[in-house]
């Protein structure tokens, strides 16, 4: 399996996801600077977290227009799995690969803490390593994670089983108290129609190393590797 991590100016979780991928893959992912004209042939494309272009415009809006994104969109259309974490999710939404937008948190503040996530759909290349309804503890760190889409889109996401993760209580209950950013219907991560694109606000790569005491995010990477071959 070959994976590429796209590095935008001021991506800052690129190394973290590189480490998590290396741990599961047993080899290095390819780090691709966003200005490089070509994207090597890979089995997985990852858009890491960070503050691409400082988030000075809307989060992800500038990076979504980076030339390499045309190729990312094309590959996604051909079925290549694309994972966007945090700022990566924002870029995927801005690039139109995923519906909806990520607005400023309802608290208007940046928030960094562990949250609980319910696996709403375990039938994907990203989430197949989890049990349906499994509760995970994964960190978040963002100022713009307030997922918004119109009701029709939200209903469609629900009906098509495209909500990957929701913020929940430790026991799995979905409540407004468990929602850290005001996201519609507690949505933390969603798929595209073909389920080969996942965007999520929480950081599974920060919960993949036993030495740091939490490995709830590791199954996501392990399952990608298992599905995409060694």
């Amino acid at each position, binding site marked *: 399996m070959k994976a590429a991590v796209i590095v935008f100016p001021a991506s*800052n*979780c690129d190394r973290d996801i590189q480490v998590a991928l290396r741990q599961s893959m047993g080899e290095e992912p390819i780090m691709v600077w966003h200005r490089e004209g070509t994207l090597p042939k890979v089995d997985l494309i990852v858009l890491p977290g960070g503050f691409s272009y400082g988030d000075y415009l809307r989060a992800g809006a500038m990076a979504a227009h980076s030339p390499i994104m045309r190729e990312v969109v094309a590959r996604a259309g051909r079925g290549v799995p694309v994972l966007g974490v945090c700022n990566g999710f924002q870029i995927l939404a801005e690039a139109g690969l995923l519906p909806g937008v990520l607005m400023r948190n309802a608290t208007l503040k940046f*928030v960094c803490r562990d949250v609980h996530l319910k696996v709403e759909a375990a039938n994907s290349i990203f989430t197949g390593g989890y049990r349906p309804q499994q509760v995970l503890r994964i960190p978040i*760190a963002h100022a713009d994670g307030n997922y918004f889409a119109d009701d029709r889109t939200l209903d469609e996401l629900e009906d098509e089983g495209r909500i990957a993760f929701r913020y929940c209580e430790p026991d799995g209950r979905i409540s407004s108290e468990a929602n850290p950013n005001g996201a519609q219907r507690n949505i933390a991560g969603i798929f595209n129609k073909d389920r080969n694109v996942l965007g999520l606000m929480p950081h599974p790569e920060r919960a993949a190393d036993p030495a740091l005491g939490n490995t709830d995010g590791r199954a996501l990477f392990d399952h990608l590797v298992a599905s995409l071959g060694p």
Partner: protein
Amino acid sequence: MMAARREPAVDQKLASGMGLSAEEYARILALLGRTPNLTELGIFSAMWSEHCSYKSSKKWLKTLPTTAPWVICGPGENAGVIDIGQGWAAIFKMESHNHPSFIEPYQGAATGVGGILRDVFTMGARPIAIMDPLRFGAPDHPKTRHLVAGVVAGIGGYGNCIGVPTVGGECTFHPSYNGNILVNAMTVGLARADRIFYSKAAGVGNPVIYVGSKTGRDGIHGATMASAEFDERSEEKRPTVQVGDPFTEKLLLEACLELMATDAIVAIQDMGAAGLTSSSFEMASKGGVGIEIDLDRVPTREPGMSAYELMLSESQERMLMILEAGREPEAEAIFRKWELDFAVIGRITDSGRMILRKDGQLAADLEIAPLVASAPEYERPWTPTPARAPLPAAAVPGPPKGMLEALAQLLDTPDLCSKRWVWEQYDHMVMADTAQGPGGDAAVVRIHDSNRALAITTDCTPRYVAADPVMGGRQAVAESWRNLTAVGARPLAITDCMNFGNPQRPEIMGQFVGAIQGMGEACRALDYPVVSGNVSLYNETSGKGIQPTPAIGGVGLVEDLRRSVSLAGRAGLAIYVVGETRGHLGSSVYLRELWGSEDGAPPPVDLAAERRHGDFVRAQILAGHVGACHDTADGGLLVAVAEMAIAGGIGAHLQAAPAGVPAHAFWFGEDQARYVLAIAPDHVAAVTAAAAKANVPLAALGRFTGTALTLPGETAISVAELRRRREAWLPRYMGQA
């Protein structure tokens, strides 16, 4: 036709407006043998400001111990450097951004973080952690809430974007900071020990390179502002505050580290306080060389900037480098890749002079060595702080409703409450090496791709320093050493950030002298040298100074992450206190919060006991005998046990206080050199025997069990309730923002 901008005539009045005294201005005239032009006067004013020259503090700073076998570079460079083994060096420093943060909290705090990050990566280190000790005014002061909100957002805004975790700090409140908040920022970075970059310019003919952001008119004379007292009109100084751009700094960080992987750089320094002036003069002065700069080549944000403005601007995210001649193209390619400005603005010469040209004309011509060497150094008159009478515990009443209710009350106060509201706004996990984040004794950040870690803490108890500067200086250093010890680290060195009032007042200077004396004593006793630091004086408004605040940033080494412990108690562990509990209530939090008094001498700090107790605790942790450990500080033993219980989500059954010490003094006294240990039953015998052998007092307090804190004869209080009380204050306070 373009009218030439007229510069004001240089005279003593103008010099005085720039913060130079009559005597200093006379010294400049004598040195030059002529009247300086405006640009030259501006340069003198910046270089001789308190902020850049340390003119009031230098004499005393020199008395601090700065060496140890593991110190690679002590004070005088951009940051301190220590050897942490296996080919790695830790590079760190703390700085203040007090004055700008009071005037414009978001940008002031943000650029404070940006500046200290540059100090560290300019030496070749990748920053791995930020810490921010903050001191605000009284909660009921009309500006406090606004300042807390702005400062916290500013720190987060910068650190989160650049992607360096903010792993801790402090946040306390006292009316003495009403007009002068303290915003200190510390950065710790890692570099290969043989790849450290210094600021000493060399090589006649080598190019002088400007990289980073363009220069604008922001922050002109910031260093001079930071060297003056505030008054009611300080708001007018808003234009002297810089504006931060963490996005550009992230690019600058990556570009610098990429270039540093080559051998093209001769010297490098960040343009911090006093911008192009201090960076160019310091680099030239260290190398004993001259520099010629063509100011027309400096990338600018706006047209028509004068030589004076270019030299004094404090625009952020800029660096000055000396390259090996001929290496410009490869260096430029790196900076262009990162979309940053890169300009050759001058050359190194052998003239020993700084020659600046602008619009084809000579804009300044100054001999460098005399300007730096003749910087004033004052022996300010000082008077020692009068000793306070000790306050016997018997003179302080017990709590009206019992110890546990007093505990709950204390946890719901501004200084002892949880600071979660603050640190959840900081990304404390990015880089995925944070083993212990905010909320413990020390942050523990793994050395990437290894089993080892750095422990980092910032500490000071200003009320102790105010009561007795010598003891308070000792205590600040000792507490930082204890906090590193409590996670199982070997303390290695400190950086200090000396925040004081107006040094021209003998009683303030006396606080400074006393604190330095106490710090030096502690550093020597604990083998814990000072490797970098910063002095912030004139923290006064309308003649009222802050509580003296020598903030200490300590760094220690965890040799094996698996041997490190946290403060979280666990069911079944026995609770012991290391050190003697005499029940010292003078200057305690209990006295202040329950009885509204700040009286009494602070607790004495016995440095031999600190050393003995700390070495014992560390040895027991490394032997695997300790399940959890917590330094006993503000609020005393009961607060320490409660914090351990809350962190572990476990109750604690405590025994009655021993006879001979009043119960409230036992539980809330702030005697020093103490730790609370949680020990598994099968290790108790070994720990007890080791304590006896090492002559370390060790006393049983109880056991972690159940869901509540209990004391004989009192109504138990659940850990859930204690947590609720401890989490309440800050959100409640800031909710009204």
